[in-house]
């Protein structure tokens, strides 16, 4: 398999001169994903879990097969450990209201969390404790241990890979530590799952969240893994059709998880597209993905070192999926505009990690993030455009 063959799978790149280095925000979609969603809407569009007719059964089967595919992808023991949500953000919010709100006082997070893993804990009025980061932005495990000692039986919720800096946390080790202190652990794998094999059993995660659109799947759908042992402790979050066994004016009997958390008509086409995207990743394989993306990171890092006045953050050479930087004396927003005008798409700004940016004393950064379809040439074009932008501003 070559990168050119992979690029041919993505209609976005056909006759398109844009250099897309913003897959951390959302990845492009292969044709096979679009095809299965189109098939649902054109050949067997029907609601799921309700109809007695064949179309409905067909749609239900595809939807439930998609759940099984997500379970397999994450190596969950059972498919009913997978809840479809609208994405990682809604998954975290679901856990905040359905599990954490009534069971925990303290929440422990890393210093690299996305706003979506900060705000729900503020809204639910939990005492939030932030693990110190070291100078290289790696997590300070000694501080983590001290927080666990001080606040045992807390809820620990950690990003596996930082969306802004590509730093990967030692999740397995941290989960083990947290469990020693009676904590439950949520892993935010929104950024990591497209770059590395995520195995919920190996990580021993209690909850894990992913978003399809960062995995070459459609927007508006994601998954929440909930370890089976915890299902009894989870409470209903939203009420509606499809989530209940029986409703009277006095009371409602809910279905078990996952259905309890899938009230209302679901994003059926999205789930089907999501599963196809995961299948697509499987056909490429993580060995190939990691080798290729490491080449891109190495090449970018090597070039970045030669950019005058560059400021990098953390262990850039070992970053996963994205690299963040600034140029001394130049605002990242200026670079974003000038790169865009040269048809290079990157993300500039605070990347929804304002507290992390505050701790670094910056407003934001330029972030380049990779998908499996990116080439060394893409990175070379980016650096040529960056050079021109810097020259224009500093002239």
């Amino acid at each position, binding site marked *: 398999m070559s990168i050119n063959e992979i690029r041919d799978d993505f209609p976005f790149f056909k006759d398109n001169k844009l250099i897309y280095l913003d897959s951390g925000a959302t990845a492009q979609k292969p044709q096979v994903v679009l095809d299965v969603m189109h098939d649902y809407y054109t050949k067997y569009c029907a609601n799921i879990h309700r109809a007695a007719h064949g179309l409905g059964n067909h749609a239900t089967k595809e939807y439930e097969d998609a759940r099984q595919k997500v379970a397999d992808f994450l190596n969950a023991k059972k498919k009913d450990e997978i809840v479809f949500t609208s994405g990682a953000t809604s998954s975290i919010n679901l856990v905040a209201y359905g599990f954490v709100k009534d069971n925990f006082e303290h929440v422990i997070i890393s210093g690299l969390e996305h706003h979506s893993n900060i705000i729900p804990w503020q809204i639910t009025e939990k005492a939030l404790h932030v693990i110190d980061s070291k100078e290289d932005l790696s997590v300070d495990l000694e501080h983590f241990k001290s927080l666990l000692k001080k606040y045992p039986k807390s809820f620990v919720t950690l990003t596996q890979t930082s969306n802004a800096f590509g730093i990967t946390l030692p999740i397995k080790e941290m989960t083990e530590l947290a469990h020693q202190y009676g904590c439950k652990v949520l892993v935010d794998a929104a950024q990591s799952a497209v770059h590395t094999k995520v195995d919920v059993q190996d990580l021993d995660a209690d909850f894990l969240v992913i978003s399809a659109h960062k995995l070459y799947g459609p927007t508006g759908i994601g998954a929440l893994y909930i370890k089976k042992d915890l299902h009894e402790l989870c409470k209903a979050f939203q009420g509606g059709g499809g989530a209940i066994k029986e409703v009277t004016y006095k009371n409602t009997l809910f279905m078990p998880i996952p259905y309890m958390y899938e009230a209302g008509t679901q994003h059926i086409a999205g789930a089907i597209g999501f599963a196809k995207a995961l299948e697509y990743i499987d056909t490429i394989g993580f060995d190939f993905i990691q080798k290729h993306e490491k080449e891109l990171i190495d090449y970018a890092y090597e070039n970045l070192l030669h950019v005058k006045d560059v400021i990098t953050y953390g262990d850039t050479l070992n970053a996963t999926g994205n690299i963040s930087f600034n140029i001394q004396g130049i605002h990242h*927003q200026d670079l974003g*505009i*000038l790169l865009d005008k*040269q048809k290079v798409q990157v993300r500039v*700004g605070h990347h929804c990690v304002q507290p992390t940016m505050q701790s670094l004393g910056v*407003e934001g950064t330029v972030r380049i993030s990779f998908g499996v379809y990116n080439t060394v040439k893409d990175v070379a074009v980016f650096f040529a455009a960056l050079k021109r932008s810097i020259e224009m*501003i500093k002239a």
Partner: protein
Amino acid sequence: MEETVYNYKEDFELFDDDMDKYEYIIDLGKKSVTLNEADKNETNKIKGCQSSVWFVVRKVDDKLFFDTDGDTVIVKGLAFILAQIYSNHTPQEILDFDREKLKILNLDEIISPVRQNGFTSMLNAIYARAKEEL
């Protein structure tokens, strides 16, 4: 004001591509005055911009003058253009000037939708200050 807008329109038309337009805007940004730190305060800061932009208003003989600054050089250049258009006019003249006339500059072609929100915020600030000074 309209004449200044046309002058900028003519300037922009000299350029074949966006990068040249941006180079011109960057040059304007570099040429514009730099406000002293005391003036870069919350009162003078334009709300609604992605980056920080400040407008200081001076009144001389019934006319308003806008001094601008920003932490990004492109926004500084755009702010400078607005300051040149609206400075040296009375508050009533500013309020009577239809901001739709700025559309001939085609700034929407060279600024992103997010930036356009910031641009609108700058314009709103100019008209608000003119109203205050009536």
